[in-house]
């Protein structure tokens, strides 16, 4: 431990030497809940303690992330639960409700309260509320090094005495103080009576009113004694927090509470909730004044210097756009060559290997087809998303951890707010242009469920990279002389419709007050690489397991759809062709009511880039025969292409202009397809078809990502419904309008 402590003001924790019990190590698992403000370094601390033992999931029924870990420390089993970062324990936000429900109901053995040493006063406001619960608590005085650099002198000994809990300075980014913290936590959990936090005095008038209510609760509901902290319940009653009463299945006697608090409201001239908040802050302020000495002269801090540029009236937006351009470019250009490599390897060498193995054991043809086109293609399809998910998670976590995410929201909020969104919605939307899937996952940076849902609903209208091959073929066939303009119009169409739908949703589905925007702008900090890596790995793994299984299942299903009944000669007679025939009449008014186009669109539900491939197959465009290869050649090919992919990825980062992921090359064989579609489409129907591909249902992976992020199919259902209607409607307007004007 290299923690530098200032001039002996920190002493060893209270009574630590005598608490060693001679009894055998306790068998009981200690449950440790970690609570703290956002930006207090809580996740870095958790990562530093639990590392790869962390399990990331969701709190039941909500989309808030839940991290937990089981491990042994000093011979003791410890179960670590990370509570959502909160500023308070009010009954209003999802995060706060989760945190307090967990603390009240599950009663962890000890709470580790992470307190930002550079911002003690506001952090102690939460501490004061945690102390009300009467659960043993230890304070991790985190980011202690930065506080020292600022010249703060914190008397942790005095803090321990005033709160009756242990206080350990920590620097989570450097893993300093963690050993002491865990020791303090286990000790406090083992001796709850000795380390029970002090009940702070809220002032005579509040205390006497609380006492009256506590007596009332004990008399009326004796069964609750020992289950719920009655002092906490009394406070909640006084604040008019009906949620707490419901949870404890108490009937709140409004008249009684009113009577008990009437004199308080009169004396303070405010509502009870505000009086309590005021009092808690007064306690936090008083404590801070006692224990923290700040230097007289304040230095101009680095954050201030950066923000002079980053939030500048004129430069703020250009800097923001430049930052976003870099994030977009890095996310997609680093990951794309690897994604392509996985794609190529599974479709080529791996499939050929499987083919040979099945042929070697004389397996039937349909098994070979299922294995390569179903199973291996499915696995490849899932894996191809992994690089981009990892890259996106890495950069999003970096933006959040560094403090720039809050600035991005600050700069963009005005523009996004006009379509009913939040400043933070911009980044998921932007990522959507590369691929909608990481965009959906990036909505987790939005705290408010409403903002998050609306962002995810509009996001699929951002024209992703997978739609590009479709545009390229159709533009090549019909609009080659003004290709750029037509391509551009697709992107603009998506954005304009997103704005329009945003305004419509704001007035209908999401009517009512738009959520508030009251956000901390945390100091800029360098996130630790270790923490970034762990976070990225956990998210990527989670995607692979949770979403991967779904995606895989769907690809198998598609194989059956495409190839059954087995041995169909004409694609028209396959289940897919039959589905196409059923759907075709619906597409008649929009200009492409034939089974070929309909079937291609059906396959596009899986992934939009498939549309081109399936059209080639349906129109039976001749494909170049592959030359037979040997096993060793295949293995060698995989190796060399991987090296090439790594090289491409590296080069992409330094290729300053142009974005590899949104520039498409023509596939071989596309020229054959072009000739065919020139016969079946007109420029007008081609344009309507392109618009339809842009707008109709987001692909299956987006569907699964939405289910994954929101915990239910509800929002995907909404997206599916409105997008189908929108796609059909827009294509109709284009086709019928064009016909009316005599185009096509």
């Amino acid at each position: 431990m290299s923690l530098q402590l200032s001039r002996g003001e920190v002493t060893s924790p209270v009574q630590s030497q005598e608490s060693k019990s001679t009894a055998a190590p306790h068998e009981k698992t200690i449950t440790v809940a970690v609570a703290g403000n956002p930006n207090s370094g809580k996740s870095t601390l958790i990562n530093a303690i639990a590392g790869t033992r962390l399990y990331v999931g969701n709190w039941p029924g909500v989309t808030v992330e839940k991290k937990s870990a089981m491990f042994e420390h000093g011979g003791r089993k410890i179960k670590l639960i990370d509570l959502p970062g909160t500023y308070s324990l009010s009954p209003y936000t999802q995060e706060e409700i989760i945190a307090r429900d967990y603390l009240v109901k599950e009663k962890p053995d000890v709470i580790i309260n992470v307190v930002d040493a550079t911002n003690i006063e506001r952090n102690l406001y939460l501490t004061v509320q945690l102390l009300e619960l009467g659960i043993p608590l230890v304070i991790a005085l985190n980011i202690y090094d930065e506080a020292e650099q600022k010249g703060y002198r914190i008397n942790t000994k005095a803090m321990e005495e005033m709160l009756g809990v242990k206080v350990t300075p920590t620097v989570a980014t450097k893993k300093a103080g963690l050993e002491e913290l865990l020791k303090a936590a286990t000790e406090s959990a083992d001796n709850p009576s000795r380390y029970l936090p002090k009940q702070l005095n809220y002032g005579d008038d509040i205390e006497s009113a609380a006492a009256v209510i506590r007596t009332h609760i004990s008399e009326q509901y004796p069964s609750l004694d020992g289950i719920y902290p009655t002092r906490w319940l009394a406070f909640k009653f006084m604040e008019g927090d009906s949620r707490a009463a419901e949870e404890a299945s108490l009937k709140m006697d409004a008249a009684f509470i009113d009577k008990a608090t009437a004199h308080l409201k009169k004396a303070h001239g405010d509502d009870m909730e505000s009086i309590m908040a005021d009092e808690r802050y007064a306690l936090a302020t008083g404590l801070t004044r006692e224990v923290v000495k700040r230097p007289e002269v304040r230095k101009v801090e680095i954050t201030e210097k950066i923000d002079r540029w980053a939030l500048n009236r004129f430069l703020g937006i250009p800097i923001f756009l430049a930052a976003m351009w870099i994030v977009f470019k890095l996310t997609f250009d680093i990951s794309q060559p690897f994604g392509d490599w996985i794609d190529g390897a599974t479709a080529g060498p791996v499939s050929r290997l499987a083919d040979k193995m099945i042929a070697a054991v004389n397996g039937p043809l349909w098994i070979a087809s299922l294995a390569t086109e179903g199973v291996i293609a499915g696995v490849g399809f899932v894996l191809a998303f992994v690089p981009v998910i990892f890259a996106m998670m890495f950069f999003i976590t970096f933006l959040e951890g560094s403090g720039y995410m809050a600035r991005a929201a600050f700069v963009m909020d005005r523009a996004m707010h006009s379509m009913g969104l939040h400043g933070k919605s911009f980044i998921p939307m932007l990522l959507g242009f590369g691929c909608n899937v990481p965009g959906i996952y990036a909505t987790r940076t939005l705290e408010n469920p409403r903002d998050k849902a609306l962002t995810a609903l509009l996001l699929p209208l951002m024209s992703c990279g997978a739609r590009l091959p479709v545009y390229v073929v159709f533009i090549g066939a019909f609009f080659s002389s003004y290709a750029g303009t037509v391509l551009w119009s697709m992107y603009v169409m998506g954005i304009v419709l997103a704005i329009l739908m945003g305004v419509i949703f704001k007035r209908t589905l999401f009517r009512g007050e738009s959520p508030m925007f009251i956000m901390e702008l945390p100091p800029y900090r360098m996130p630790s690489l270790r923490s970034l890596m762990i976070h990225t790995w956990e998210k990527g793994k989670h995607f692979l397991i949770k979403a991967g299984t779904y995606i895989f299942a769907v690809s198998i299903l598609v194989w059956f759809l495409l190839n059954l009944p087995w041995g169909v000669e004409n694609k028209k007679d396959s289940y897919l062709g039959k589905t196409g025939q059923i759907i075709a009449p619906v597409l008649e008014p929009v200009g492409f009511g034939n089974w070929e186009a309909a079937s291609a669109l059906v396959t596009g539900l899986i992934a939009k880039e498939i549309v081109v491939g399936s059209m080639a197959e349906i129109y039976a465009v001749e494909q170049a025969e592959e030359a037979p290869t040997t096993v060793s050649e295949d293995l060698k090919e995989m190796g060399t292409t991987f090296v090439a992919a790594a090289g491409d990825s590296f080069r992409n980062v330094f290729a300053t202009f142009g974005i590899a992921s949104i520039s498409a090359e023509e596939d071989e064989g596309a020229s054959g397809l072009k000739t065919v579609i020139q016969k079946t489409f007109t420029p007008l129907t081609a344009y309507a078809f392109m618009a339809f591909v842009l707008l109709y249902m987001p692909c299956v992976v987006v569907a699964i990502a939405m289910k994954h992020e929101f915990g239910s199919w509800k929002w995907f259902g909404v997206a599916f419904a409105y997008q189908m209607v929108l796609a059909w409607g827009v294509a109709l307007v284009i086709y019928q309008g064009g016909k009316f004007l005599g185009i096509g």
Partner: protein
Amino acid sequence: MNLAMLKPGEYGTITKIGSIGPIKRRLMDMGVLVGEKVKVEKVAPLGDPIEVTIKNYNLSLRKKEAEGIAVEAIK
């Protein structure tokens, strides 16, 4: 006089929080309390939201929310 009317660089003392319910509670949770000294730091490039310093940290809020916070300007 309300918080949205202060210009960047100006200080004020909060005299009343007009909003009610969740917004008021949230503001108070973030340290926006009556009697607290507040400084307006910046206005976002597009004119909204604003950034203020309160209780030794930086907070951003939309003008709509700032309008509900009455302040007395400190000269």
